[in-house]
């Protein structure tokens, strides 16, 4: 279900699993829609997105998120 703030359910699921995934899949991308998680983890964002489309279709948004212990700082200059 789409909530007022998009992808909040998916972000909650990510946080619930983050410590476990940091140990097993650090740096990989995970794909989540509602509480459903794509079983594979991916090296590249685009590969993860394509896997999300195959599993969930393109009708609704899904979360694609990289697994880090702490969020990296990305500089744009």
């Amino acid at each position, binding site marked *: 279900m789409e909530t007022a703030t998009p992808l909040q359910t998916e972000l909650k699921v990510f946080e619930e699993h983050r410590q476990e995934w940091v140990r097993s899949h650090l740096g990989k991308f995970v794909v989540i829609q509602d509480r459903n998680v794509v079983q594979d983890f991916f090296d590249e964002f*685009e590969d993860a997105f394509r896997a999300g*489309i195959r599993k969930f279709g393109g009708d609704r948004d899904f979360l694609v998120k990289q697994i880090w212990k702490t969020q990296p700082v990305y*500089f*744009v*200059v």
Partner: protein
Amino acid sequence: MSTHSIRWNPFDPADPGPCIKFSVTRFLDDIEAGQKVGLEYSAAPIPTALIDTGSPFTIINKVLARTCNLHRTNPHFEIITMGGPCDCEEFCGSLSFPDSPLPRIPEVRILAREFYKETAYSCIIGRNILKRWNICFDGKSRLVTITATDSA
């Protein structure tokens, strides 16, 4: 391999940098599936993008991301600019370059944020696109030549 040249005068302080026309849409498979069932899509706008080696990601105007109905993949993605931290949204979309022979990029990570004073362009083409291109600047002719090294 396809090649495209653009003019850039780095010695003119008013020149924003090397720019290229672009078009952003939902990822290609989604549009093709829609067209097969009879959906019609209006022509995508063709705004201007700045080529920016200083950005790790491609970033577009948030209004453009919503207008083009891109597929959202993360509602919060923080970057740090010279003006300080900036909360972006993250999308996946397809990029093409209508005024050039450069190949379409079927799906790519695109961040979106407010563009306040960047009137000359509404997209920053970052290194996640540039890694697909070979870019050469000739200072004498003031020409930037882009060669697409792959189609993916």
